[in-house]
């Protein structure tokens, strides 16, 4: 239970008028003087403000539900199967099967013509792009970096690379930028460029990305079919993940 003092009807009405800016300027300045000198009045203003906000929020929520009902084609009832899935069921599956069969033949021929090398298979098995840094609304500083991070997380590596590249022109030695530019290039299949960026972290021994950078460098070397270089890196830095990769490399 709250220990805050309860308010009288007169206080409620005065505070309401203050909060809704319905007081005359004289009345308002008198009220503000009292408010500055009286902490219990301050507490009451806060509490009544919150109660009014509660009433308004609940009323708005009810209204929003009503507004939503008029939006056509949406499934506002939570227990319904989403329309997206339903729609797929209602269409005829025949053309889809035909398309699948054609694709299978094309891919089959393509596969035998160009079998991926074992190093590419190994790369594909182990490469998972770094999950990225959390991006929140409140991130005011370094907006451009986190804006690109959102693209990165959505798998839009090219956009992220372009945005980060522009920032790179301003600052040269930033381990975070070098790391994510490297991983984004690797995700795009450009292992040579990835290596350029990731190697820059070598000189930044205090960076928190150093261990991850070595792992991704090893993967980039594997993709380039430079297995000796990958092996050497992994042996020099024996973390659990690196040892697992090394094991796979030996097989």
């Amino acid at each position, binding site marked *: 239970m709250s220990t805050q003092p309860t308010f009288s009807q007169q206080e409620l009405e005065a505070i309401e008028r203050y909060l809704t800016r319905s007081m005359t300027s004289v009345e308002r300045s008198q009220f503000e003087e009292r408010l500055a000198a009286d902490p219990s009045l301050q507490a009451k203003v806060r509490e009544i403000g919150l109660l009014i906000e509660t009433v308004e929020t609940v009323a708005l929520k009810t209204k929003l539900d009503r507004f*939503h009902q008029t939006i056509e084609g949406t499934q506002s009832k939570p227990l319904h199967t989403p329309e997206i899935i339903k729609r797929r069921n209602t269409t005829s599956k025949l053309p889809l099967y035909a398309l699948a069969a054609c694709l299978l033949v094309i891919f089959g021929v393509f596969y035998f013509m160009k079998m991926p090398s074992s190093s590419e298979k190994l790369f594909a098995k182990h490469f998972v792009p770094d999950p990225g840094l959390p991006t929140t*609304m409140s991130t005011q500083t370094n907006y451009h970096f986190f804006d690109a991070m959102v693209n990165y997380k959505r798998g839009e590596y090219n956009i992220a690379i372009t945005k980060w590249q522009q920032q790179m022109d301003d600052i040269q030695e930033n381990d975070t930028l070098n790391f994510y530019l490297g991983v984004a290039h690797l995700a795009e299949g450009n292992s040579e460029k990835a290596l350029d960026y990731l190697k820059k972290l070598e000189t930044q021994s205090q960076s928190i990305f150093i261990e991850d950078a070595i792992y991704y460098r090893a993967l980039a070397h594997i993709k380039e079919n430079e297995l000796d270089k990958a092996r050497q890196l992994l042996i020099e830095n024996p973390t659990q993940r690196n040892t697992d990769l090394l094991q796979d490399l030996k097989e």
Partner: protein
Amino acid sequence: MGERIQIQEQFALVEAIKNNNEFVLNRLYQENFRKVELFILKNNGTMPYAKDIYQEAFITVWKNIRNDRFTPENETAIQGYLYQIAKNKWLDYLRSGHYKKTVALQSLHSASQEEAPPEIQPREDQAEPVLRNALDSFNAMGTSCKQLLIQFYFEKKSMREIADSLKIDEASARNKKYRCMQKLRSLVHTPK
């Protein structure tokens, strides 16, 4: 010149939102839902999620405008702000432990399209706790209190109008409002 007019429109929109103008709120809601829905559907979401996230974002925008924490700086500021908040709320949800757990569980089931996948269960239990508490407390009151408080605080009706519709005198209506607020206060402070 055109830009200035549009900025003025944004300020007019702010005023209308502060006054809970139903027509304006409804238009703002309808005009921006599809874009948010599309973003959520493209990013592993479902329609019920789109609705919940959009409404949470809408309430946040409304609250920030109401409390003067947001001032439009360009001609589509409010619409952009609403989209950005919804987008961030959805990305935060995707990163949340709850989502990851749900997805992990889902992969254990054989994916039958006839069955509703677990991720589209109602999200109500995860609604913001403050909003949840407010909803519960408010709904625990009697209908006459709810109506009176909504008419006065949300619809901004005068006590005279409310008293007339209740067929009581204004002093009794004011006293009733006071008792309703005390009731709400005690409900909000009661541990759930």
